[in-house]
C-alpha cells in the first residue's frame, strides 16, 4: 500500500519523522515493544480486543498517517514568501450597486483601519479576505493573494492559514503557566530554536503590558492588559499567518502603538476594525464601509497626522493619571491640554 506502512519499521518511522510518536499516541496505538515491525505487520498481529477497546480502525489509521506525514512535511518547507500582498476587487453593496473603487492593494507592513456603523458589513469584508473570496461570497468580491486567486486546497489548508485573529473578548482557558503555554505553542509550530523564541515573546509581551508578569504566572491569572500583551506578542512572533485581524484593541493596560509596531515589524498586514481615532490614524489607510459595501478609501492626510500627535499626548496624560491612581497618588492635571 504505502512505503510508510510497508517498508519502514515503526522505529525507522519514529527516527525519520519524530512527530509520528504523537500521532501514534493520539490514536491510542499500543506500539511500544513492537517498534521492529512495519505498521502493516503490527496491525496484522494486533489483538482484536485492543482494536475494539481503543476504537482503532487500522485501514483509516494508515491512510491518515500517510496524509499526516505529507502534511507535516509542508510545515518544514520554509519557502513561503515573507512578503504578502492582498488585492481586493469590487463586488456589490447590499442594494446591488457596484462598489466604486477599481481595486485596493495592501502589502506587508501596512496597517489598514476598517470603519463603519455596526451591521454595515465590516465583518463580511474581513471574512472575504480570510476566505480569499473568488466571486463566491454574498458580496461578489474577489480577493487575490500575492497577485492570484487561491486554489481550493490552499483555502482549506490549516498549515498556511492566511489570517490570525485577535478579538476583543478573548481569554486564555488553558490551565498552564506562561512558559508552558509558549512552549506548547512553539512545539505545535515546530520551531527550531524554541528557548530563544519563548524568551523573545516573553520580553516583548512585558514591554507591551502596563504591569510586568513572570514566566511562572498561570495564564488564567494574567490581567486583561497582560493577557492581551501576551496574545499580541505571541501572535506576532509565532503565528505563521501573514494577515492579522484585530477587532478593537482595548485601551486599558497595553501600549497600543508598540503593539502595532511589533506586528508590522514582523511583516504582518494588520487590518483592524476600530472607531478609536488614535488607532484609526495610526493606519496607512481607512476603508469606509456602508450598506454592505466599501464606500470610500481615505489615505491619512498630513493634517490628520498632526492631530494624531495631539491625541497621543492626550492619551499619554490619561495613562499617566491611571498610573498615579494605581499607585495611590493624588491626581494633578496641568492646564496645557
Amino acid at each position, binding site marked *: 500500500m504505502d512505503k510508510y506502512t510497508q517498508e519502514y519499521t515503526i522505529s525507522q518511522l519514529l527516527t525519520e519523522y519524530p512527530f509520528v510518536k504523537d500521532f501514534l499516541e493520539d490514536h491510542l496505538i499500543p506500539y511500544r515493544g513492537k517498534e521492529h515491525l512495519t505498521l502493516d505487520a503490527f496491525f496484522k498481529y494486533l489483538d482484536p480486543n485492543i482494536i*475494539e477497546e481503543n476504537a482503532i480502525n487500522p485501514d483509516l489509521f494508515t491512510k491518515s498517517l500517510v496524509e499526516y506525514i505529507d502534511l507535516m512535511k509542508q510545515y518544514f518547507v520554509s519557502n513561503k514568501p515573507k512578503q504578502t500582498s492582498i488585492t481586493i476587487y469590487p463586488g456589490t453593496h447590499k442594494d446591488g450597486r457596484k462598489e466604486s473603487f477599481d481595486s485596493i492593494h495592501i502589502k506587508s507592513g501596512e496597517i489598514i483601519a476598517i470603519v463603519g456603523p455596526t451591521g454595515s458589513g465590516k465583518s463580511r469584508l474581513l471574512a472575504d479576505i480570510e476566505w480569499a473570496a473568488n466571486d463566491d*461570497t454574498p458580496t461578489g468580491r474577489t480577493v487575490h493573494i500575492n497577485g492570484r486567486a487561491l486554489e481550493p486546497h490552499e483555502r482549506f489548508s490549516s498549515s498556511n492559514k492566511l489570517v490570525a485573529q485577535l478579538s476583543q473578548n478573548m481569554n486564555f482557558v488553558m490551565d498552564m503557566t506562561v512558559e508552558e503555554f509558549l512552549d*506548547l505553542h512553539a512545539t505545535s509550530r515546530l520551531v527550531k530554536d524554541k528557548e530563544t523564541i519563548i524568551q523573545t515573546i516573553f520580553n516583548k509581551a512585558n514591554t507591551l503590558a502596563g504591569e510586568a508578569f513572570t514566566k511562572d504566572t498561570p495564564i488564567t491569572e494574567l490581567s486583561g492588559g497582560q493577557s492581551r500583551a501576551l496574545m499580541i506578542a505571541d501572535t506576532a512572533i509565532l503565528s505563521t499567518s501573514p494577515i492579522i485581524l484585530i477587532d478593537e484593541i482595548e485601551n486599558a493596560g497595553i501600549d497600543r502603538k508598540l503593539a502595532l509596531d511589533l506586528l508590522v515589524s514582523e511583516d504582518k498586514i494588520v487590518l483592524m476594525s476600530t472607531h478609536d481615532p488614535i488607532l484609526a490614524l495610526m493606519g496607512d489607510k481607512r476603508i469606509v464601509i456602508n450598506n454592505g459595501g466599501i464606500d470610500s478609501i481615505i489615505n491619512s492626510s498630513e493634517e490628520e497626522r498632526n492631530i494624531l500627535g495631539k491625541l497621543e499626548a492626550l492619551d499619554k496624560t490619561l495613562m499617566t493619571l491611571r498610573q498615579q491612581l494605581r499607585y495611590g497618588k493624588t491626581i494633578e492635571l496641568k492646564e496645557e491640554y
Partner: protein
Amino acid sequence: MDLITVSGPPSSGKTSILLRTIEHFKQRGLHVGVVKFDCLFTDDDVYFAKLDIPVKKGLSGSLCPDHYFVSNIEEVVEWGNNQNLDILITESAGLCNRCSPYIKDIKAVCVIDNLSGINTPKKIGPMLKSADIVVITKGDIVSQAEREVFTMKVQSVNPKAIIMHVNGLSGQGAYELSTLIYDKDKHVATLEGEQLRYPMPSALCSYCLGETRIGKKHQVGNVRKIKLGDS
C-alpha cells in the same frame, strides 16, 4: 436530495452553526429540512422551526441515541424525500464520544469547540477521526495561540478532514461552510444497504437489558472489568 450528518459533543454549538448555515441555504432558494436526534430533551426543533423549515425531532429515551439514529435513518431519508427537500441535515449529539453516526459516502460533519480542552480531540473517537469536515467553534473567546494549538491537535487525529472555524454567534464562516457541505449533484434516494463508517461499540450486558442490581452474580453478557492491579 443531499444528506448531511452533523454530530459533536453536547453544547459544542451544532445547532447555532446549523441555524446560521441554513440561513445561507435559504437565501439561495434551497429547500432544507432538519431532523434532530437527542437523548432526553431538546427544544432545538423550536429554533429550526423559526426558520420556517420542516423539522422533526427524535428522542431516544432509554436507548443509546446513536443506535436509535441508525435504526431510524432510513425512514428519516424517506421523510426528507417526501418533503421534496434539496438538503436534509441530521443533527445528533455524540454522548459517550465513542459512537459515530457517519455513513459511508454521506457527508459527515463534526462540531467541537475550543473551550473543550486540548486533550479532547484525543478523547473523541470515530466521531472526530472519520469526519469529512471538522467545524471548530467558540474561537472568538480564546487566544489565537490556543486556536492554533487546538487546530493542530484536531489535525493530528484527523489529517484528511477540512478544518473550519465558524462563529455560531456572528455567523462568521457559516457562508463558507454552506458552500462546502452541499453538493447539488448528490441525490440520496435511499440508505437501504448502505453502511456505517465505523461499528457502534459492542454492548450487550445485563444492564443494557434493564438490570439495576450491583454485583458479579447479576452481570451477564459482554462484561469487562477495570484493571486495578494487586490489592
